[in-house]
């Protein structure tokens, strides 16, 4: 209660921090009226305070005692549980130890020495028994004292008996002591199953050792039987921390290492665990209470663990019990505290209630407290205070009322002004909201039933904003006021002064006669008009009135004047704003049009649309139309607006009778405020349209280009309101821009088209150059370009083919079939035919209207739906050879330019065709030449045989004539025909048919030979004058057409060469000429062969004769030599006196006989040699020889002859000549002959022999200083029976065969012999001889 305080001076008694305070709004609520406040807010505070105090005392006491008891019981229980856990661990350890001991016992039993220790079989049975009893043991072996394995028995593998394997180094053997089993470390078989080796030595320290491998998985049976609570378990860990046994066998098999767990670590570290159990965490991280018991013998640790949660479950239960008791105590103490606190607080609450009522203004109630203590005195104090408060309250209330009203008025005025300012700032573009606000505020704040704002509009004041508080009265009743001093507002505006009249009634006549109608109607008595003044002018006025006479309060007048200033400012603002915006809009419009122009350089339409749209918008027109001059009409190019469209306005005649026409023709701007008032005959067309549309103001601006008007922009308004100067100027700008843009577009399109055409022409040229042999790609390209560039649905190319026009190419964007007809007859029924016949370009604007003129083209047009057609004939060397045909599917004639382009294409087509023709002709000529050349080559390479020549001719014919069958028919000496060569099907039939035919009139062959001309049958079956033989042959072999060229030699027909085809048709002149050539060639070949045969026959005869001669010579020589030898022998005997002495005369005769006989013998020998050589009977006998010895001996042999003639015989032999390989005797004969000759023919001087070797050849020169040999004779001297001149021979003697024989011998050696000589300057015989003869050469 002490924090309560009264605040004097406040409008209402107000308590700070009072429990039952209320919201004191100044002046809004009636003082003294109690309001129901948030009573509950402080209600329980004291009560709670006491309650809490008592409660907390009791709670603390209870908690302290509870906590102490819990703590001690917890500690006791914990240590008890730990001990229990440890006990369990010890028990588990002992069970496992027992288990192991059991195994050891069994082992020991099995290891006991047998009666007969050597009987391993008994031992094996023992071991097998053990395996059966102890499933843990998988392998058991016994090793003797020396460490040799005696027996090994396994559950998993083969038993080994007496294997004598050395196991002495195994730890089990080494470590096993007598009477003390050895336990090996735990190992994991295949990294999964735990095993341990146990070894027992029996019978002294050197007794045999029994070793068993134990599968520790079986300890699972033991550990899983040990129950540790609900979730606890016992498990075994070996010395290195590996899990050996666990109820979860999987953990063991996974070879889990637990050495990192805190309790395992602790157990490993400490010998003697200080505490029986510890809190640790298991593998999963769960808090567990764990205890350890070691198995010393195995160095294992047995752990038992139990989740902490489970262990302390009971402990928690006791704590819960304690907590329950505590809560019960607390509840009881809470009730006690409640009763105590309530008794203390009740009187205080009564006081509080009273004080709250006083605070709420309930000053007429007393506080009733009867406790008889300090609280009752306090209540009395309150009651007295209430009385005093009641008195001072009434006075205060009155004063506050007055102040509030004044404040409210000024506030409202301020608010009104600021609101108008806000309206001004929020509507910068529109003055109407401002004026409306001014009117409304003025009416409200000046207690006027009616306020209005008038604005000067010419010479009247127009009310633009009115506001009436009286909703019943009509606002429309007020008429515009004349702007004159005789109306109240007029005077205010004109004088720019506030007019304030207390009663207007008496002033109607004297001062304001114009005010009477409005004032009377509205019942105006007091009036106040304030002008809206700005920079010396007045826009209008604000007017308010009352229906009772009396002045307005000064603050109201001032307020209205403020409003007037604000309104003026607002009007100014809006005017400025609108002017700025308009300028901006125009600029924007211009720039947008420029942008449209630049963004659509090829098309004028978007630009014109943009211009029309801008003009419509910026000039506030109802319709905006742009028309362009097109010949003698104006055509609408762009139109914007919402007036009804008139069809006749799409295209208008270009006359002065329309507004637009006038504008264009006169090149002037036409502007009329109201077309309806213009005389009918001035604009007959314009008026006509005006009557139908109903527009009034019109503006028409011509589009000018270089002093020529090319169009017009026209604007309409539906009302008679003239366009402003600014708008007209803007439209002119638009017109200029449009004109420039149209010009640009025209230029752009012209350039682009030109470029496209050039490109097309260039491309076609490229196609021409890239396909010199084929005209089709060129025609395709031309058709495609023509269709594209001339904007045609399709373009087709036709070429003449006899009396037809054959279709070759069609291209075009038309999706319909572009190939119209394959061939057209060249006549006047089609446009193409006629264009070709008349040699001129024909254009038909609408094919569908030309049925009578071009019936064929009309039919096609109907079928394929084309309308406009143009045909350009193609010329080559002045002769038409084809057409280009373009079609359009609408009626749209082709332009000059397009026709010119087609002409160019036509020329190009002509060039291409000519190229191809030339190319093909050249190629053909080349092929023919090649064929002729081949035939000639065949002739020259096979002179003796005609078959290859015929074959070649037939082959060439087949290729060049595209013949199906080709053949050569020969006429035999008997006049019968036989086949020389044939190519193609039906040879058998043909040959059979021909075998009995003769070269007479009934056969084509006969006919050709007789007439000596090529016979040409284009149609064998049906043609006229076809020989019967040919017809029969044709039927049998399928020949339909054939040509026959006669082969003639010296007027005699040798046969024909013919070509046949399997289709009817003539052969060309070229073909005929070519076949003739072949026939001539064949004749040459035949004659060649014949001549050669004759020559061969003759030479054979000559050869035989020559052989006979040689044979004869050889025989004869032999026959001659025998008697000659006898003659010589006997003459010698005679000469030597064998048959008696002879006188000198007889001796002289005998000498002559001997001399001539020897000469004859030499001659005969030479002839014999020669004949042997000629007969090929002479053989060289090849052997090693020395050239230097050969030369030396020869020179030595002839020395006497030289000496006899007084000649010097010299020889010079190069050193180191190689050994030769040849016929030494023959070579000696050669050298002897040459040296002999030299000596014989040389009368004085010397004979010199030079021998050398180079490049594997001997060079032997024999020089003499004889008479020399004339050049003409030099060749002859090596031939048989030739001597230089008869006289010298006669004188010198000799057979004339020596040199011939020498030459032959040298040649048989592969060497040469030659002569260098000059008459009177001696001779040199030069022999070149291979050092080593490879083989004998044929003697030539």
């Amino acid at each position, binding site marked *: 209660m002490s924090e309560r305080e009264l605040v004097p001076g406040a409008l209402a008694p107000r308590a700070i921090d009072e429990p039952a305070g209320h919201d004191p709004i100044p002046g809004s609520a009636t003082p003294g009226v109690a309001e129901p406040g948030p009573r509950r807010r402080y209600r329980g505070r004291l009560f709670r305070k006491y309650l809490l105090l008592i409660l907390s005392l009791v709670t603390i006491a209870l908690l302290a005692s509870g906590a102490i008891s819990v703590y001690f019981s917890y500690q006791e229980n914990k240590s008890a549980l730990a001990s229990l856990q440890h006990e369990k661990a010890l028990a588990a350890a002992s069970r496992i130890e027992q288990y192991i001991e059991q195994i050891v016992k069994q082992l020991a039993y099995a290891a006991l020495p047998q009666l007969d220790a050597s009987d391993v079989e008994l031992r*094996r*049975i023992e071991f*097998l*028994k053990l*395996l*059966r009893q102890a*499933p843990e043991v*998988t392998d058991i072996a016994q090793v003797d004292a020396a460490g040799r394995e005696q027996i090994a028995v*396994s*559950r*998993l*593998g*083969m*038993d080994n008996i007496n294997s004598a394997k050395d196991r002495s180094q195994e730890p089990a053997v080494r470590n096993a002591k007598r009477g003390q089993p050895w336990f090996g470390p735990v190992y*994991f*078989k*295949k*990294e*999964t*199953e735990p095993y341990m080796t146990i070894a027992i030595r029996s019978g002294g320290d050197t007794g045999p050792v029994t070793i068993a491998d134990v*599968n520790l*998985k*079986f300890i699972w049976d033991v550990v899983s039987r040990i129950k540790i609570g609900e979730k606890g378990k016992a498990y075994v860990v070996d010395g290195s921390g590996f899990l050996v046994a666990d109820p979860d*066998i*999987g953990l063991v*098999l*996974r*070879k889990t290492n637990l050495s990192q767990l805190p309790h395992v670590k602790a157990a490993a570290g400490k010998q003697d665990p200080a505490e029986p159990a510890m809190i640790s965490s298991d593998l999963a991280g769960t808090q567990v209470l764990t205890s350890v018991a070691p198995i010393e013998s195995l160095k294992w640790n047995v752990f038992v663990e139990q989740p902490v949660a489970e262990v302390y479950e009971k402990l928690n239960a006791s704590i819960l019990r304690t907590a329950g008791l505590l809560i019960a105590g607390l509840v009881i103490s809470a009730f006690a505290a409640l009763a105590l606190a309530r008794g203390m607080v009740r009187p205080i609450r009564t006081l509080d209630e009273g004080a709250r009522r006083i605070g709420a203004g309930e000053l007429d109630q007393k506080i009733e407290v009867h406790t008889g203590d300090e609280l009752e005195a306090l209540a009395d104090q309150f009651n007295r205070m209430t009385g005093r408060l009641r008195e001072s309250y009434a006075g205060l209330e009155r004063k506050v009322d007055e102040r509030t009203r004044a404040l409210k008025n000024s506030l409202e005025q301020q608010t009104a002004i600021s609101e108008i300012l806000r309206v001004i700032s929020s509507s910068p573009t529109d003055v109407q909201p401002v004026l409306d606000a001014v009117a409304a505020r003025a009416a409200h704040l000046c207690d006027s039933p009616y306020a209005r704002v008038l604005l000067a509009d010419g010479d009247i004041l127009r009310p633009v904003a009115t506001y009436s508080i009286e909703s019943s009265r009509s606002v429309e009743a007020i008429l515009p006021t004349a702007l004159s001093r005789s109306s109240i507002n007029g005077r205010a505006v004109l004088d720019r002064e506030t007019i304030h009249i207390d009663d207007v009634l008496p002033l109607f006549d004297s001062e304001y006669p114009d005010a009477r109608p409005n004032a009377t109607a509205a019942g105006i008595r007091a009036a106040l008009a304030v002008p809206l003044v700005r920079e010396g002018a007045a826009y209008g006025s604000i007017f308010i009135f009352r229906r009772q006479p009396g002045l307005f309060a000064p603050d109201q007048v001032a307020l209205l004047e403020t409003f007037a200033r604000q309104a003026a400012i607002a009007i100014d603002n809006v005017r400025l704003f609108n002017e700025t915006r308009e300028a901006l809009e125009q600029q924007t419009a211009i720039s947008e049009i420029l942008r449209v122009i630049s963004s659509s350089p090829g098309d004028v339409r978007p630009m014109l649309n943009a211009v029309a749209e801008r003009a419509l918008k910026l000039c506030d027109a109802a319709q905006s139309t742009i028309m362009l001059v097109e010949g003698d009409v104006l055509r609408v190019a762009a139109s914007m607006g919402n007036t009804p469209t008139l069809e006749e306005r799409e295209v208008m005649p270009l006359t002065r009778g329309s507004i637009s026409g006038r504008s264009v023709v006169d090149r002037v701007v036409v502007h009329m405020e109201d077309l309806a008032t213009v005389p009918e005959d001035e604009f007959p067309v314009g008026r006509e349209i005006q009557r139908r549309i109903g527009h009034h103001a019109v503006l028409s601006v011509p589009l000018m280009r270089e002093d020529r008007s090319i169009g017009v922009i026209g604007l309409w308004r539906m009302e008679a309101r003239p366009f402003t100067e600014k708008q007209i100027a803007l439209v002119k700008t638009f017109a200029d821009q449009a004109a420039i843009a149209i010009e640009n577009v025209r230029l752009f399109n012209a350039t682009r088209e030109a470029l496209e055409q050039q490109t097309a022409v260039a491309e076609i040229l490229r196609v021409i150059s890239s396909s010199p042999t084929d005209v089709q790609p060129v025609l395709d390209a031309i058709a495609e370009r023509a269709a594209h560039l001339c904007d045609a649905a399709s373009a087709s190319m036709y070429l003449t083919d006899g009396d037809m026009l054959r279709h070759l190419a069609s291209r075009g964007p038309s999706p319909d079939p572009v190939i119209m007809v394959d061939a057209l007859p060249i006549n006047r029924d089609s446009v193409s035919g006629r264009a070709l016949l008349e040699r001129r370009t024909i254009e038909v604007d609408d094919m569908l209207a030309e049925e009578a003129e071009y019936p064929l083209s009309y039919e096609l047009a109907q079928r394929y739906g084309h309308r406009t057609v143009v045909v350009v004939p193609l010329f080559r060397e002045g002769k038409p050879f084809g057409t280009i045909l373009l079609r359009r599917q609408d009626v749209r004639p082709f332009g000059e330019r397009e026709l010119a382009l087609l002409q160019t294409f036509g020329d190009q087509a002509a060039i291409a065709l000519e190229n191809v023709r030339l190319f093909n002709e050249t190629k053909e000529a080349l092929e023919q030449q090649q064929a002729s050349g081949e035939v000639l080559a065949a002739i020259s390479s096979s002179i003796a045989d005609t078959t290859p020549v015929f074959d070649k001719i037939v082959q060439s014919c087949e290729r060049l004539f595209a013949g199906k069958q080709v053949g050569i028919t020969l006429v035999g000496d008997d006049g019968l025909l036989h086949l020389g060569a044939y190519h193609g099907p039906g040879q058998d039939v043909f040959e059979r048919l021909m075998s009995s035919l003769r070269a007479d009139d009934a056969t084509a062959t006969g006919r050709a030979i007789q007439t000596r001309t090529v016979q040409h049958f284009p149609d064998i079956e049906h043609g006229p004058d076809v020989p019967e033989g040919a017809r029969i042959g044709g039927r049998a072999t399928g020949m339909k057409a054939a040509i026959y060229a006669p082969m003639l030699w010296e007027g005699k027909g040798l046969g024909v060469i013919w070509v046949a085809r399997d289709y009817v048709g003539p052969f060309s002149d070229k073909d005929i000429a070519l076949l003739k050539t072949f026939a001539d060639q064949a004749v040459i070949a035949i004659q060649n062969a014949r001549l050669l045969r004759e020559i061969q026959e003759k030479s054979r005869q000559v050869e035989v004769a020559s052989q006979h001669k040689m044979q004869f010579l050889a025989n004869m020589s032999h026959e001659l030599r025998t008697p000659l030898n006898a003659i010589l022998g006997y003459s010698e005997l005679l000469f030597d006196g064998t048959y008696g002495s002879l006188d000198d005369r007889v001796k002289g005769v005998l000498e002559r006989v001997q001399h001539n006989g020897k000469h004859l013998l030499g001659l005969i020998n030479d002839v014999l040699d020669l004949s042997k050589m000629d007969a090929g009977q002479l053989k060289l006998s090849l052997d090693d020889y020395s050239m230097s010895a050969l030369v030396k001996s020869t020179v030595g042999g002839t020395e006497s002859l030289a000496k006899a003639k007084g000649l010097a015989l010299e020889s010079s032999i190069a050193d180191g000549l190689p050994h030769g390989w040849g016929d030494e005797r023959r070579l000696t004969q050669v050298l002897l002959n040459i040296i002999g000759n030299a000596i014989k023919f040389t009368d004085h001087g010397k004979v010199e022999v030079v021998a050398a070797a180079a490049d594997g050849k001997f060079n032997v020169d024999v020089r003499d200083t004889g008479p020399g040999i004339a050049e003409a004779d030099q060749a002859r001297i090596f031939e048989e029976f030739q001597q230089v001149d008869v006289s010298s021979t006669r004188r010198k003697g000799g057979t004339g065969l020596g040199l011939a024989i020498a030459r032959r011998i040298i040649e048989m050696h592969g060497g040469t012999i030659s002569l260098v000589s000059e008459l009177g300057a001696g001779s040199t015989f030069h022999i070149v001889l291979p050092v080593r003869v490879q083989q004998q050469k044929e003697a030539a």
Partner: protein
Amino acid sequence: MMDRRTLVCGIALTMLLGTRGRAEQTQTVYRIGLVEAGAPSANQHFVDAFMAGLRELGYVPGKNIVVDVRWAEGQADGFRPALAELIRLRPDVIVVSSTLGAVEAKKVTTSIPVVFIGVPDPVGSGLASGLAEPGGNLTGLARAAGDGLVGKTVQELREIAPGVTRMAILWNPGAAIDERRVQAVAAAQAFGITPLVVEIHDRNGLQAAFGAMRKEHANALFVVTDPMTLANRDEIVKLAATNRLPAVYEFGEFVHAGGLVAYAPSITEQFRRAAIYVDKILHGAKPGDLPIEQPTKFELVINLKAAKALGITIPKEMLLRADEVIQ
């Protein structure tokens, strides 16, 4: 005050009920697909063992588990359609027996966990990257521990029939068990026995195979077991008897069918244990993390009737050792 209390009680009650409601909704029915290599006429006891294993773990078929069983009928190409059919049923786990089956299962799915049974060498067959951590989506039970088992089996035969000189090795080349043939050949050679490998591809080849054994004068038989030979065990046992061949088998089933002797882990037991794998996988374990178990228990099964028919006397110590002797 009363209102607030009511509200608090209401909220607590709602939460309690809500929790219970949710708990009841989480009961799911798992779907297991099982492909058995053989035919129901011969191998139904395997499936029964698996179902028994599931029941031991608290699964009730039809209530919280559905097991779809398909049979490969001893055919090498019987697994693929069976697996395809099962996969269409969207099982949570696939259980498949034999190496061939596991290999086929690995081909058809990489996402559905697969538990295999009776695979002699899972790592060598490419089914697992290691026994301890198979990786991938396959795990299961290996049928052999170490490589010596075939040798051990051959040894058993030799002890029963010491006069064996030529041992026929019957095997199916199409069953991906090449290494066991190699081991069998090696084992025979280790005992100085001439191995005679006889190929068999299907049931139709059995007569010819035994004909070949006769021709080669085989005097003992080792059957390399695969789904096909297991499925046709009656026929094989009969043929071995008529051909008077002492035979040793890799499956006890053969001896139950009249075969002479077998040394093998119990496949029935493995089917039962497979349920444990399924259970672990259903509880969220990844198959790749579950180690592949190797068998520890190998049963020596001897059929005295067969021995008598062959005129063989089983050594006493062997009878002592035998886990099962069929009279």
